[in-house]
C-alpha cells in the first residue's frame, strides 16, 4: 500500500480468559481497512478466540477499537451494520431457503418487524448473484452441498454490507477444490469492495496448504503486527496476504 492504511479494527492489551485459563494475553494488533487479513497459527493457539474478541462476542480485558471507537461504545445496530461475522459452525438452518438466509443479513438495516424494502431486496439479489446462488434462492439449505452452503452463509455475511467482515475458518468444512473456488470468490469480492468503500476482511485459520496451493509469491505475505500475539505461549502471526495473485 502506498498510503498509510486507516485501521479498521485495533486491539490494545487484549486478554481473554476462558474457564480460568488464559487464552490471549495482552495482544496488540491493527487490522488495516481495504485489505484481506489472515490470522494464521497452530490449532489451539487462540485464533478463533481472538476473532471472537475482536467481534465483541467474548468478554475480554483491554480494548477493541472499531474504526477508532471503542467497541462497547457502539450502539448495537450501528455496530452490526459496521461489522459482519461469519462463524465456524453456522448450522441448524436446514429449513431456511437461500434467499431468506441472505435476507437475515439485512436485519441490522431493518426496523423491527418491518418487511424487507426495495433496497434490501436489491442487496440480497446482488450478493446472491455474486456468490452464484441466485438460481438456487428458493432451495432450503438442507438441499445444498457443503460448498454451496458455505457460499450461502458468505452471502448472508456480505448482505450486511459491513465495512469489516470477520470470518472464522470459512474453509474448514470444504474439500480442496471447493476451498480454491471459495478463496477465488472471496478474493474477487475484496477486490470489488462494497459500493466503492474500502472494506476489510479478516479471516482466521486459513490452511497453509491452501495458501501455498494458490501460490502467494514468496515474501508477499508480510506481518503487519509489530508484536507477536501471545496465545498460550505460541506466537501466531498476523499476516495480510492481500497481494495473493
Amino acid at each position, binding site marked *: 500500500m502506498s498510503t498509510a492504511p486507516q485501521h479498521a479494527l485495533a486491539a490494545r492489551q487484549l486478554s481473554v480468559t476462558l474457564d480460568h485459563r488464559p487464552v490471549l494475553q495482552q495482544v496488540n494488533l491493527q487490522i488495516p481497512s481495504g485489505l484481506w487479513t489472515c490470522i494464521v497459527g497452530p490449532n489451539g493457539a487462540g485464533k478463533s478466540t481472538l476473532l*471472537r474478541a475482536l*467481534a*465483541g*462476542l467474548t468478554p475480554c480485558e483491554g480494548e477493541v477499537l472499531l474504526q477508532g471507537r471503542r467497541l462497547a461504545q457502539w450502539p*448495537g*445496530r450501528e*455496530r*452490526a*451494520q459496521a*461489522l*459482519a*461475522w*461469519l*462463524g465456524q*459452525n*453456522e*448450522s*441448524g*438452518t*436446514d*429449513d*431456511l*431457503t437461500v434467499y*431468506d*438466509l441472505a435476507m*437475515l*443479513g439485512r*436485519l*441490522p438495516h431493518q426496523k*423491527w*418487524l418491518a418487511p424487507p424494502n426495495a433496497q434490501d431486496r436489491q442487496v440480497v439479489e446482488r450478493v446472491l448473484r455474486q456468490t452464484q446462488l441466485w438460481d438456487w434462492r*428458493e432451495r*432450503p439449505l*438442507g*438441499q445444498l452441498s457443503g460448498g454451496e452452503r458455505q457460499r450461502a*452463509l458468505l452471502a*448472508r455475511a456480505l448482505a*450486511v454490507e459491513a465495512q469489516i467482515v470477520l470470518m472464522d475458518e470459512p474453509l474448514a468444512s470444504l474439500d480442496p477444490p471447493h476451498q480454491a473456488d471459495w478463496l477465488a470468490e472471496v478474493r474477487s469480492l475484496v477486490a470489488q469492495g462494497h459500493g466503492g468503500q474500502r472494506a476489510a476482511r479478516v479471516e482466521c485459520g486459513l490452511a497453509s496448504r491452501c495458501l501455498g496451493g494458490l501460490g502467494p509469491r514468496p515474501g508477499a505475505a508480510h506481518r503487519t503486527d509489530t508484536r507477536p500475539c501471545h496465545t498460550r505461549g505460541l506466537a501466531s502471526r498476523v499476516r495480510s496476504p492481500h497481494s495473493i495473485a
Partner: protein
Amino acid sequence: MKETATSWAWRLVALSALVLLLGVLTGSQGLSTWPMLRDDPALADVVLNLRLPRTLGAWLAGALLGLAGAIAQGLFRNPLADPYLLGSASGASLGVALVLGLMGAWAAPLLHDAGLSGWLRLGLTGAAFVGAWLAVLLTLALARGVQQTVRLLLAGVVVGVVLGALASLVMQWSPEAWPVLQSFMLGQTAMIDWTACALMAAVCMACTLAAWGLSPLLDGLALGESTALSLGLRVLPGRMALVAVLALATATSVAQTGLIAFVGLAAPHLVRARVSVGHARFVGLSMLAGGVLLCAADVLARGLLAPRELPVGVVTAIVGGIYLLRLMRQPLHARHS
C-alpha cells in the same frame, strides 16, 4: 419444491373448521344431526355448553402446544425440543398438583361440586406457569446454557422425571384430589368449560403477538448465538422473553387439559416437512397444526369406543409415538424433499 405458506395456512384453517364441526357433532351416542339438534332442546344445550367449549378448548390447547413447540425448537435450535422434553410440562403439572393437593385437603367440596370455578382455574394456570417457568430455568441451569444439545435434552429428562415424581408424591398425600389429579396426568378435555376457553384464547392471542414480535430473534438464532449477536439482536433478554412465552403457553394448556404428549413436538415437525418459512409464519402454522391435531385426537378419543371415552392424552401418546418412530426410520435427506 415446497408449497407456499399461504396455501398451507388456508388448508389448516379449513381442516380446523372440519375437526371443530366433527367435534361438536360427535357425542356419546354417535353423530348428532341437524334435525336432532333442532328437535331436542336438551341436546342443543349439551352441544352449546359442553361439546362446543370442549372442542374449541381442545383446539386452543393444541394451538398453545404447537406454539410452545415451535418456539422451543427455534429457541434451543433443536428439532427434538418440545415443551415436554424441557421439563416445563412436568413443572406445570407439579404446580397444578400442589394447588389441587392443598385445595383437596382444605376444600375438597370445591373440586367435587360443579367443576372448577373461574378463580380456581386462574390460580391453577398461575401455579402451572410458575412451575413451568422454574422447570425450564432449572433445565437451562443444569445444562449450563443451550449450546450442548445432548446436555440440554438430558437435563430436560432429569427435570421432567424428578418433577413428575414430586407431583405423584403430592397425589399420594391428598387422596381427596386424586380423581382430578389423575385426569390431569392422563390428559383430558372433559374439564374444559367456557371460562377455560376464554382463558386459553386470551393467552393464545398474547403469546401469538409476543412470538410475532420475537420472530426476528428466532430467525437470527437459527444461525447460532454468535451470529445473532453480530446482527445486533438482543439475545439474552430476548431468550428470557421467549422462555417466558414458552412457559406461559405450556402452563395454560397443561392447567386446562393436563399432560398431553407429542402435539408440541409433532405440529412443528409436520409444518417443517412441508414449508420453509421464517419463524413468524412458522409459529403461526405450527399453532394451526397443533390445534387440528389435538382437536382431531379429541374426536377420536370420544368417538372410537363411544359411549366410553379415552383420555385424549393416551390417544396423542399412541399416535405421536408411531409418528416419531416413522420419523426415526426416515433418512435425513428425505425429510426435506
